């Protein structure tokens, strides 16, 4: 019933707006509205163009001032992070300059050369020099960006085996993450989803006969020792997922039927990151918001929101179904000693099976 009423109200509102537009329309019936712009229209819209230019500049400034100090453009927590951030900042500066100038020219010309009766435009059809200038300048700028960008890309994606990276598998399924550590041999045991045996708690489909699999460790939290190169091998058991670790500037899709990889070296422990002034400021801001929200919740008789404490996260960033929005895993970067202590407490694969 409420549904029907709402629809009726919606229809009435639409009709009301329609009628108001109609009144506006009819009110001009007597004026000379031929549908073609007059000098007055040109002037008014010319000024509005300048107003709009101001609006674009203001919205740019507001966005940069309010949200420009992004933790994700500085404060990266991986070794390659600063190179991406530098490239990002350079690109942003170039974009900002080009945007400011071209938008100015566009809107200023629209204002300056607004039409007047009897005026004649300049017949200016071509100029090879100008054309050459604005072909060559983008070529040079882009060449620089391409070289810098590709260099960065190759450095990030190339895995240097001589670094002896620690191999960890990230395993995705609707709608959670698992991590598999390769154990003392630093080699992941063979696995295929066809070998999954829920009754024996072989949830990732490891090959029970493979000697490399015996000391693998499966966890639901991702602990990383700081300063150690990590090579992630991604797998998915059902649909596409994407392992997105924004603080480490890392992302790779998890594709059923194949193994993908991404490597990085974490450089800042969770504790250190929590202590940076920038992060503390952000956490305070978020907690203030949460306190405000909690007030409303308590008034409704619900529980207050928990206090937020910063943690690195692994998010799913490829649409994967109903609970895509809540597919996450906590990442903890810690010292080697803390890591060693933690991993020792975890069960090895051979001991986790149920017979």
């Amino acid at each position: 019933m409420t549904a029907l009423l709402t629809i009726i109200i919606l229809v009435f509102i639409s009709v009301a707006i329609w009628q108001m537009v109609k009144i506006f329309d009819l009110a001009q019936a007597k004026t000379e509205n031929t549908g073609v712009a007059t000098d007055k229209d040109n002037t008014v819209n010319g000024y509005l163009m300048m107003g709009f230019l101001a609006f674009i500049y203001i919205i740019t400034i507001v966005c940069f001032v309010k949200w420009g100090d992004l933790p994700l453009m500085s404060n990266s927590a991986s070794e390659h992070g600063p190179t991406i951030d530098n490239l990002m900042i350079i690109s942003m500066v170039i974009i900002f300059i080009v945007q400011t100038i071209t938008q100015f020219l566009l809107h200023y010309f629209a204002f300056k050369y607004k039409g007047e009766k009897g005026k004649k435009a300049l017949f200016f059809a071509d100029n090879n020099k100008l054309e050459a200038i604005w072909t060559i300048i983008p070529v040079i700028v882009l060449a620089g960006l391409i070289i810098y960008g590709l260099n960065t890309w190759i450095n990030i994606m190339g895995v240097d085996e001589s670094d002896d990276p620690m191999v960890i598998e990230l395993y995705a399924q609707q709608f959670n993450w698992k991590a598999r550590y390769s154990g003392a041999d630093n080699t992941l045991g063979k696995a295929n989803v066809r070998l999954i045996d829920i009754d024996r708690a072989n949830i990732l489909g490891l090959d029970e006969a493979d000697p490399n699999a015996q000391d693998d460790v499966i966890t639901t939290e991702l602990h990383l020792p700081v300063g150690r190169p990590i090579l992630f091998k991604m797998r998915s058991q059902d649909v596409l997922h994407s392992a997105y670790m924004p603080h480490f500037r890392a992302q790779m899709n998890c594709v059923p039927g194949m193994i993908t990889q991404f490597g990085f070296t974490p450089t800042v422990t969770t504790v250190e990151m929590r202590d940076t002034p920038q992060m503390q400021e952000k956490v305070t801001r978020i907690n203030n918001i949460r306190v405000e929200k909690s007030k409303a919740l308590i008034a409704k008789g619900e529980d207050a929101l928990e206090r937020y404490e910063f943690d690195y996260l692994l998010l799913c960033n490829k649409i994967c179904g109903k609970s895509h929005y809540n597919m996450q895993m906590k990442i903890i970067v810690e010292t080697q000693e803390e890591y060693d202590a933690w991993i020792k407490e975890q069960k090895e694969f051979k001991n986790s099976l149920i017979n």
Partner: protein
Amino acid sequence: MSAHADTHAHDDDHGHHHKETFVTKYIFSQDHKMIAKQYLITGTIMGVIGVLMSMMFRMQIAWPEQPNVLFEALLGKWAPDGVMDADIYLALVTIHGTIMVFFVLTAGLSGTFSNLLIPLQIGARDMASGFLNMVSYWLFFLSSVIMILSLFLEAGPAAAGWTIYPPLSALPMAQGGSGMGMTMWLVSMAIFIASSLLGSLNYIVTVINLRTKGMSMTRLPLTIWAFFVTAVIGVISFPVLLSAALLLIMDRSFGTSFFLSDIFIQGEVLHYQGGSPVLFEHLFWFLGHPEVYIVLLPALGITSEVIATNSRKPIFGYRAMIASILAIAFLSTIVWGHHMFISGMNPFLGSVFTFTTLLIAIPSAVKAFNYITTLWKGNLQMNPAMLFSIGLVSTFITGGLTGIILGDSALDINVHDTYFVVAHFHLVMGISALYGMFAGIYHWFPKMFGRMLNKNLGYVHFWVTAVCAYGVFFPMHFIGMAGLPRRYYTNSNFPLFDDLANVNVVITIFALIGGVFQIVFLYNFFSSIFYGKKAEQNPWKSNTLEWTTPVKHIHGNWPGEIPHVHRWAYDYSKPGHDNDFVPQNIPLMDGEEELQH
């Protein structure tokens, strides 16, 4: 060529004697002008549905999991107690994307203006095949009906995102919408592609064969160049999507494994082996990226025409404009991989695609600068079409520039699939193409319906839309840079993003205002069809041939002989002429030289 055109005219004169019934005139019409109107009105209706969907999911993003009477009324069982369900959220996002990209900005834009303008601007009696043209429209109509009907399925419509990546789209157990909903989506798109191909072939053949005497390729208006090249890209890339859709149908229904391998879902291992979802991504984006230009090029073509006419100046760099259209078309077919930098394909391929992708910025920059130079020292007539064209150049620049970040594989790692991408492509192809469509409607409404749109309503429509478009999509870049993934039903499970919630509220408010204000346009459009001021033959004092046809539509377009063409389309404010425009059918004066463009 003229012999061709004349025999055609002869045929049509015979046709005149046949009696037209309501059905042959308004429904199964083979007249390109009527088919254009059919495309426009169908596209508009689909557009209203697509925009309403976006308004609904924007409300969910701003006020997550809040009861909303609107949801209760419109979504029924998908909004128990008025709270939007997570499944239907994904479905709305999916169908919004599908409708806007294909049904509004491909069929609605190209279908309308290619059909209307190609014969009129090149001086032809009609399309090369009126019958195929009619079939093309009715296939489009059928595919629209199927897509809309899929909204009413028990398990919901397709919900795997408009890119329908398998395995999510292939496995009914992965998601409610991947059952019958996805089947209908695929069937609808297959029919849509057939429609698009028939249309494109017709446009290509018509432009090549039916130009009037004197209409050489280098005298064609830039609109026609844009439509022509768009049709070529469509013919190259749409069949690839069709093949992807057919293979996906096989995987879904006949047990093949083109895109699927090693899947364990809901407690069982599926039989699929040896396929790869990455293959689907390649096939999809081989259409998907050119599709961006299928959407954008016609809008840019319309803008070229509108800006030149209303600046009372020749378009600056006519040959450079053609060259840049061709360069964009060529590059657009070799950049698809920039959607897949982190899909698991070889990083070396990523490097290649970064290179080709950033190259596209060059012809795009040439176009933007040429538009700006066309305005310089013009005598700008600020008609609503002109405003939308200037608006297009503005959003094209703003949206295009962030492409430099997304096209760079290293930077893409961290903003891939975040709201940064959403902001980028909505500005550069969504809003820009929509502005192009609006510019086309305001400019050629007199040609289509013989009446004028109310310009003051047009001004209100433009300014509110322009402010709202920036209000929605500019801040969106920043929540993307803060790492917020797209297609999240709610962000409340991530306290990390709590401080972005108020940005989302601002965006939604702009979206709602902008959406509701489209009523101004709809009113203007539908009431002016019947009650608008009667149009003159050439209201904008334009040079192109369509304005030499009578206001009242006739079969065959020109009552007498088709005019011959003696000059290019951009002799505006040419020195030595009294008027500030010289239509293409006016012969050169004694001693006048045609510009060596």
